[in-house]
């Protein structure tokens, strides 16, 4: 499975105060000729300079600068005044903004995760100094920056040559025991592998015997999506963590998963052996953190693309829902696209009109983007259903109001015909009715069970009754019906 590739080549990270040096073109100087498409080979060709590696001291320095939460926001806003205006009609500029906000563009430092980074670094360095093995467990919801931190680690350990890294995504293993062969495969000690023992046994032998070569490196094992190693007897997970408890073990294990209590639930034995893994929890991002991260991404662009209030609105909404950074980026890009269509649409009519002042992503764009992301399509679909299907949905809503949660098709048909009769609409026949129920089942509005006889199929509602009432409230007939 793909490991996360190198970072995008935005120009060197500058500290906030030095922004004024930034001039027009956001891309590197070699991009002189205007090109419609940014070619991937440009990024691939240019080699990252050594400044890119984040030594711990520099990380700490950066952390100090960025530590003050509210003060930094203000200095950022001050600096925004000094930036030039953004022209959304310019393709290159639009592309630059979109790329800065794409999920695959990894920032060069991790913002808002300094604490977690520090703890993990301390742990690894501690293990290395004492030449002891250890295990670390990183947990958190999706989209909170766990794999991102591991990626920064990759860079980090390049600065420390005495660590050998094995990085595995456990979802890509066909069998859970393959993880041991993956670990072993990276660690050729020159000893001939004995054909009859499994990779696990070989590893156990390896870690229990004294090494001939004294200059052995410590091994860093990073296991991503570790909950896929959980089998019924939990052997594989246990053995993996037990590798760190063997007397002469030299491996540092870092496991990444979503469940907070994985270590407690699935590895109770470790507690008794007093080698529970250290747990670092990545909490979901709060509103301030999201705003900081967004500004960090946009800080290198020499123009203002987003109104600050729009960013705040987006951060507030998403942090209240899930705190997932990927969703934030997706919503911002969606807002950009709305602005782009708006701008491009007006260009077609009158190309003579000069670019209006401060064209950037404003609150209404962001509101539209948020609505598009968070709105469920159920209400729209119910409103656009043909009339008979709406009557069926309405009768289902009435039928399942009480405690009874499912009925047969025949009973629903009776209700449907009552409603039709009360309003002088000719009801559809039973075959047509069952067809319409199947269509609604396909769409996920009703749930139809299997039965041999059409009339005995059990129907239940998949959609909330409040949604149905909301969707049909414009039509007086249904309003009366649902009373």
């Amino acid at each position, binding site marked *: 499975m793909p490991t996360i590739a190198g970072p995008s080549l935005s120009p060197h990270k500058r500290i906030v105060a030095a922004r004024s040096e930034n001039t027009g073109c956001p891309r590197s100087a070699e991009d002189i000729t205007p090109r*419609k*498409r940014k070619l991937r080979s440009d990024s691939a060709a240019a080699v990252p300079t050594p400044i890119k590696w984040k030594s711990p001291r520099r990380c700490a320095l950066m952390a100090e600068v960025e530590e003050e939460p509210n003060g930094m926001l203000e200095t950022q806003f001050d600096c925004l005044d000094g930036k030039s205006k953004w022209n959304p009609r310019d393709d290159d500029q639009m592309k630059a903004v*979109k790329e800065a906000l794409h999920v695959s563009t990894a920032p060069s430092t991790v913002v808002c995760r300094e604490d977690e980074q520090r703890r993990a670094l301390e742990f690894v360095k501690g293990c290395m100094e004492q030449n002891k093995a250890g295990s670390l467990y990183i947990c958190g919801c999706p989209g909170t920056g766990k794999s991102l931190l591991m990626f920064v680690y990759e860079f980090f350990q390049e600065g420390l040559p005495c660590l050998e890294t094995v990085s595995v995504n456990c979802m890509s293993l066909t069998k859970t025991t393959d993880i041991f062969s993956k670990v072993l495969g990276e660690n050729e000690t020159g000893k001939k592998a004995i054909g009859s023992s499994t990779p696990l046994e070989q590893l156990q032998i390896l870690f229990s015997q004294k090494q001939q070569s004294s200059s052995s490196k410590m091994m860093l094992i990073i296991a991503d999506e570790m909950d896929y190693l959980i089998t019924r007897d939990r052997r594989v997970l246990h053995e993996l963590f037990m590798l760190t408890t063997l007397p002469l073990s030299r491996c540092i294990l870092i496991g990444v998963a979503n469940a907070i209590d994985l270590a407690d639930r699935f590895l109770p034995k470790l507690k008794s052996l007093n080698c529970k893994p250290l747990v670092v929890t990545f909490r979901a991002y709060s509103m301030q953190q999201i705003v900081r991260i967004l500004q960090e991404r946009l800080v290198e662009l020499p123009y203002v693309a987003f109104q600050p209030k729009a960013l705040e609105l987006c951060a507030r909404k998403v942090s209240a829902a899930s705190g*997932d950074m990927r969703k934030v980026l997706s919503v911002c890009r969606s807002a950009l696209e709305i602005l782009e269509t708006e701008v491009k649409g007006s260009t077609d009519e009158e190309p003579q009109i000069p670019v209006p002042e401060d064209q950037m992503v404003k609150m209404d764009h962001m509101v539209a983007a948020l609505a*598009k992301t968070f709105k469920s399509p159920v209400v729209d679909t119910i409103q*656009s*259903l043909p009339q008979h299907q709406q009557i069926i949905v309405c009768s289902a809503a009435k039928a399942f109001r009480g405690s009874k949660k499912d009925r047969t098709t025949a009973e629903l048909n009776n209700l449907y015909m009552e409603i039709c009769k009360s309003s002088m609409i000719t009801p559809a026949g039973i075959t047509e009715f069952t067809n319409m129920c199947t269509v609604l089942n396909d769409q996920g509005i009703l749930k139809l069970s299997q039965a041999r006889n059409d009339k005995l199929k059990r129907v239940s509602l998949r959609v909330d009754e409040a949604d149905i009432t909301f969707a049909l409230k414009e039509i007086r007939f249904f309003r009366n019906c649902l009373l």
Partner: protein
Amino acid sequence: MGKENSAEKALNLIRGRLCDPTSVFRPLSGSSDSNFSKLKFIVSTSITEGCNNSILLLGPRGSGKAAVLDLVVGDLMEEYPDSVTLIRLNGLLHSEDNCAFKEIARQLCMEHHLLFSKMASFDENSQFIIAMLRECGLAHKTIIFVLDEFDMFAQASDLLLYSLLDAMQSVTSQAVVVGISSRLDADQLLEKRVRSRFSHRKILFLPPSREEIDSLLEHLLSLPADSSFPSGYVSQFNEKIKNITSDTRFKDMLKTFLNANSTVNSLLKFIFRAVSSMNLESGLLSLENFKTALSSMQRQPKLEAVRDCSILELYVLVCMRRLEVKEQSSYNFISVMKEYKTIHDSFQTSDYYAQNVCLRAFEHLREREVICYAENRGQSQAVEYRPMKLLISASELHQGMRSHACCPAILLKLLDH
């Protein structure tokens, strides 16, 4: 002669148009607000800017999702001839991981003229796919993954979706994942990790509005003026079409039809049937064609069965219904006969037949599946003693009898009491 020839040619032309999704959905997608332009905008920006995207197309079956996607892909293949690779997967066939990876590898091999080995293992396939994604990303080729029946992929194991979407999170790949599903909550079915990686763009395919339907009808049914038809015929034909579509009766018919099923596909089926019943002598469409099409599409088979019954069979049905009304939970032929006798005694009807004749009528009804055995056990019992039940509802019986050619009035009265 000549007229019939041109009528046939016109018929073929129109029927060809109806069966070709491009000519149907192209006029529907003209405006800049349509789903076609939205989809095209998203996919083309992904191609030109080289960024990854994922999108979901939702809508009831037959609303044109796959057709619009085909239009978009066809356009893009013309505009960017070498930079687009298309991979198609279907949730009904490829929801299992092994199958899916094999299919992706096979299609990639076909597109790039490489040799595909059926013996390749799962690991080899996945490594090949990752390598191809990287290569295509470096060569600025976009791969478009089309996942039909996306909800089946979402409900099956997560490996395929996770690996595709995870590959798209890296900078080296250039891919677009388009999911097509008829379930509105398709993205809620995804596992939380996969849902986080999926960008929540959804395009909803709603049924067309009245204006769109009117313009579509006109576009589909009018003959072009510059073709090989005699010009008088063309203008006559188009004139007739205009008359029909502006007729209120036609509008009512269309409304009744759309009240039951409003997707584009069903509308096309309706028009196809109407056009196929065109009178070849006159060479012109008429309102009758549409009426026959509507009635053939909205058939009620049980109703027709009742309408074709003989009087005795109707008596049997009415007796069974009366027994049901009297709350007799199960009845058989003997009880029906008793009821029949009671009716005859109280009303002195003229139709009183012997038991074996009635039994034959009974058997006819059972063969036509208007009635059936209540349970499948008791195969050894004689026909007369096995419990029976009605397969049609009271209202269907009522309606059928009312539209029956010669149903005696007494039966209708009996049914009501």
